[in-house]
């Protein structure tokens, strides 16, 4: 089953400090390990939340606004889609996330079932 791990951070990206660089290196290793195990489907690091643009639909009309879709101090800073046997395995991968922020684990809808 596919799960998306959403990495939450302060929306600023990794700080340009030695500590920030060290965390960044560990995140690279986390992805590398996952990739080698064949469990990584895809993953991206997102640019800072200030770069976000939101398109809303107002009575069928698209309205473009600056900023992320929700006013918050916490944002999705990146994601990984992983293949895991069950929620426990996905949680184990999330527990090893070195980024420090929370990780939301969400199962993906499986469109292959029942077809």
């Amino acid at each position, binding site marked *: 089953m596919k799960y998306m791990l959403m990495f939450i951070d302060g929306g600023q990206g990794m700080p340009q400090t030695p500590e920030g660089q060290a965390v960044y290196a560990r995140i690279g290793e986390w992805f590398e390990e996952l990739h080698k195990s064949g469990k990584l489907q895809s993953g991206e690091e997102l640019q800072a939340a200030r770069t976000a643009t939101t398109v809303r639909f107002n009575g069928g009309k698209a309205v473009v606004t600056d900023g992320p879709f929700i006013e918050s101090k916490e944002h999705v800073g990146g994601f990984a889609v992983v293949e895991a046997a069950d*929620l426990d395995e996905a949680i184990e991968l999330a527990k090893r996330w070195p980024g420090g922020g929370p990780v939301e684990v969400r199962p993906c809808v499986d469109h292959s079932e029942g077809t």
Partner: protein
Amino acid sequence: MRGPLGRDVEARDAVAAVFREEAPRLIGALLRQIGDFDLAEELVQDAIVEALEHWPREGLPERPGAWLMATARRKAIDRARREARGREKLALLVASEPAPAGYEPEDRLRLIFTCCHPALARDAQVALTLRAVAGLTTAQIARAFLVSEPTVAQRIVRAKRKIVEARIPYRVPEDPHLRERLDEVLAVLYLMFNEGYLSSGPEAPERRELARDAEWLAGLLVRLLPNEPEPLGLLALMRLHLARADARFDDRGELVLLEDQDRSRWDHAAIEAAGRLIERAAALRRPGAYQLQAAIAAVHAESPSWEATDWRQIGALYELLLGMLDTPVVRLNRAIALRWVRGPEAALEELDSIAPELDGYHLLHATRAVMLRALDHEAEAAAADRRALELTSNPAERALISRRLEGLA
């Protein structure tokens, strides 16, 4: 067949006891085979309805579990013919070889770990465990937690849906994770027990049925994991509390404090038996928070009188407990012991240090009132008692604090 059961209460209890043992095993076995919680429960309900028709007339079968399993399988075939829903899953069950008993030894244990999975909200864990493992109806759970039946039903439906949709596994966690997950199960059972033992709501001071259900579940866990010391500790703790339950309320239903309880009304045989559980746990040489709390409760329970209480030992046990579980509530309980080891001033100092974190907890203020009164600070004590009164709706606790405020206790 063992012969007709008759209509007496004993027979009804015998059937209820069989259901209680067999139903979670059956749900667990079916869940393993078809992977659908709802359907598994419905099949078990079908089998129980059939048993209720036959057993009172014909007597208990020799192997009630196998009888129920065979009936559930037959019901599964009927259902698969009748309706499309779940047909593929039912086919899995019908096609599988019926094992001698149809059960695996770990079916109930798997069920417990699934119901208490940390990805489920605590109230859902509690409701699901009571329903699927202890066999309570939605109505019984609603009554026990003073919430509406639709609320409980919704919690259960949502939890089951998450189990399926997020694929929460149906298995006993393996070693590096077992302890952590076991802690989660124990926390669910202890919350259940505490809510029954001293309820937080206004309608009744205790709901001992719920406390007994939690105790039964802890006993089941001990039978399933006999070499884990913490379930033994929790079971001993619950039994020590229940052994004193009859002396906790007076004729008017008001709460009697430990120091005023009539110790001849305690169940001394149960206290001794709980002591043996603690020894059994200790022999496994892995101390834990529940074992220590049970040991503290045992010192109280084994003391012939309030005056003879071994406060030094209780204080020492609290120090060990703090080393494992340093929470404000543990510090609050230790403060009560501190009063008798080092005096009310030391106790008050400790209480004041945790006051910011426990400001919303009535027992912090009630305990502060006791210490302040012991130090002759009557006005401050009354203020603390009034604050406690604002924070609890339990009728027996309210009555006790009110009496104290009126200077009657």
